[in-house]
């Protein structure tokens, strides 16, 4: 993911403490043994925002283009799994695709 703020779910004005807290919380829900790839992404994001100097450098030098998913994350992040409404079930029970 190109935007470390999105990875850690942080606002653009997050300070050192907020970055650390967000990293710890994210790692708790996604420890390295469960999802090493996700953990690495969290670690990379944390390193790029860890200090004020790092945050300035990220803003200056991060040139990775966004993906559609990142734009969507920014607009409306993925939430907890939701239960589809009965109407959606009925459409599929009727053989819809």
């Amino acid at each position, binding site marked *: 993911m190109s935007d470390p703020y999105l990875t850690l779910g942080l606002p653009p004005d997050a300070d050192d403490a907020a970055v650390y807290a967000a990293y710890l919380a994210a790692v708790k829900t996604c420890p390295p043994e469960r999802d090493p790839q996700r953990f690495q992404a969290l670690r990379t994001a944390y390193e790029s925002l860890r200090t004020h100097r790092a945050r300035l450098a990220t803003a200056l030098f991060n*040139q990775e283009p966004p993906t559609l998913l990142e734009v969507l994350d920014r607009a409306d992040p993925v939430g907890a799994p939701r239960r589809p409404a009965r109407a959606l079930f009925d459409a599929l029970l009727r053989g819809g*695709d």
Partner: protein
Amino acid sequence: MKKSRKVGAAAPKSPQQSATALLALAQGQAAAGRWREATASFKDLLKIEDRPEWRLELAAAYAGRARELAAKGMPKEALTLWENRALVAPQLPPELDYCALLLRQGKVQAVLDLLARTGGRLEGATLTALRSHLAALHLAGEAGVAAGLPADDPIRALGPTAAAALDAYCRGDDAALHEALAAIPFRSPYRDLAQVLKALQRAPAAPAEAAALLERVGDDSGFAPLRRACALALGPPETLPARLADAGDQTRRFALTLAGWGDERQALWEETHRVGGTGPQALLRLLQRRRALLGEDWARRQALRLLVPGFPKSAPLITEGGGRRLSPDERLLVTAWHAEESPNPWEAIEAWEAYADHLIEAGPGPAGSDAALRVALVLRRVDSHRDILAGVAPSQDPDSPDRDLANALALSLTYDPDDRDTYERLVRYYLRGDRLKDARPLLEQGLKRFPKDPGLLTAAMDAALAGDAFKKAARYAHEILALDPINSGVRERLVKAHLAHARKQVRAARYDLARKELDEAGQWDQDGRRREQRALLAGLLDLIEDESRGRDALRAQFAALGDGLAAALALTLEAVAIGRTAAWALKAAGSGKPQAPTQADLSAFLARLRAHLEGGEGLATELQRLFDKPLSVAAKWPLTLAESEAACDTLRRAGLTLARQAFAVAALKRWPHTPVFVLHQFESRRTGRRSHPDRAELGQLEDAWIRARAAGDERTAHRIEQVIDQYAPPPFFPGLPGGLFTDGFDDDDDDDGPDPGQFQMPPDVAMRAIIEIMGIDQVLKIAGLSAQERAEFKRREREVGRARMIDEVLELMREELPDFGTGRPPAPGPGGRGAPPRGGPKGKRQTPRVTDTKPPSDDDPEQFELF
């Protein structure tokens, strides 16, 4: 006109023969899945003879074609073919696909009629699957199902329970869901629904268990579309959009909702797909259109990043997507981002320099402010991104970017003086080139800000050691050990520093101070790793002060070391280090001229020599002369291949040329044509010789190169390649205008210098001027001389002076380059390889830098451009 019958043409086939051929054709088409052609062929066949088995085959072809059309989204045409199948073979029971198609078309009653008529002929599995389709429809509210079934049919009887389970799931009532699921028997037509709901209930905590439950629902079940949508939602979130690429609207909405996508997110995704995919242009448009939702700054920054590939041609995309034109700041930034993709570091250096200049012009604010930090970070960018200064020494090559980067880093400290790493990085860089004058102010500055930093203190200690300031080095070592008492590396360096200081004091005849240093070394040498050196040094000191006492001490020590060549090396290394001769020390120790070692002594000698060389010191010429011959004799010992290779390498590093040659020859006798030994043999033979090797020698080397490549020994192959390149046609000053040698020389490199016509001075005069500007060492380096050979020239220069040395170099050029001064290019060497062009992978600076912090020195090769 009547056509004449062709001679030899086949006679018309009998009907029996035609039917056989047609049957084979039809069956082949059916086997290949060419249902349309197969139905036509079977129909033709039935016209010849109406056989029941051929009707069955036609029915199968109709079924195949019907499925094909249904898959293509042509349900009406598919139904027609299913009906044809029923007409041609009415005895066959209806197939599930046919029934499912009828149900999807809303023809529930037709299916119920079929079931009533032919249900008894259906296979059990087909009947179960068909009833699950009816159950799914009934659950979805299709009234026709209940109307056509008796009240006690399980589809109707269990319908309310299934509906209760589904509703309980949808409203999140897990207790009610559990209760309802328990009331659905295993053999119920709603069994698959129960599996799906159980899977959904378990999915958040146990995704693997949920997946296993979903797998129990077969593809022919009426609940299969529901199962597919759930399975798509439960995979990895990052690949969800890809998994849904071919899904229909209902499946996609269901899966996205289940995966936690909100309505806004789903709407944006649908919108992007409607307007043309996820390419850069589509994203640019999306960012622009939804900038209010995304945040103006964020959307703009992302839009800039999308412009990087293909910049500056891509710049108009931002306005085409509805965004405003790029500001000067944005243009410079995207240019720098784009330049980072180039393998030529100069592109990135110049682009970031331009951006730094722009930020500085805008007013960087006080040191340490955000604006100043940005300037500092930009100035450091190329080095931190490409990690250029980490392992290099200051280069004399004007095309090498390290000097510009070092200047940029030094400048960055003006804006961000609190970056510890930059101090250490720069200091280490200058220390690698023995540029102590450049390193010291940085150290001072850095230590003022970070007085307790072990890294900077270690760098300071190393700088002090490099400048022979042993007292200072010891002081820094004490400071480091006070901070980090178990730092064994520093302890070791401290011992070495005291020993070095002791040797310095001996050389200055301050023996009492030397003893003091030895005592200090002893106190810190807790693990006794330098005990032997300390004892030898103490013995030599004794010898100087009291010959008799010293002789006894040295003899005892020499005997303790084994009395052989290894002991002689240990002793003479110390003797030379205090400015005495090897012969003096050996005589005092009761040893004569060194003799050929035993195999064990040889191993000890090489190990000791290796340890000495790894300390960064070479072997004095006196010692090279002393040990070269006895070691040559030792080449007879039967070493392993690895030992021989290690021996040759150690001898190479020590400059023991004769011995190296002897070991290489001995190894080649045991392992003929081994590339690494061919290389050692060649190099040791060439050492000290100025003439070019003959074709046979170079041919052997090229063969060795081929064998090394074939054996995958890239390291040796690379080393051989470098040696061969040394003997390629001399690339004398490839960056220089060709007019120095000939009007036509280097005429394909117009950018390298001014018009050759202006260089009409005699070559000898021109070359003298070049040497004076560039310095003798740099000229010799460009001419391809090794560091060792250049060191000889330096020594000679110290003896005879610079002016005389330049005369000698010019004389050497006349000898080595017969065409020098004749206006013709130098003759090609037998290797036939040219030097790599300058400005190759590392490129060249395009424009001069005006903000360098350091003015160019007289020795700066860049001054060449003034020529």
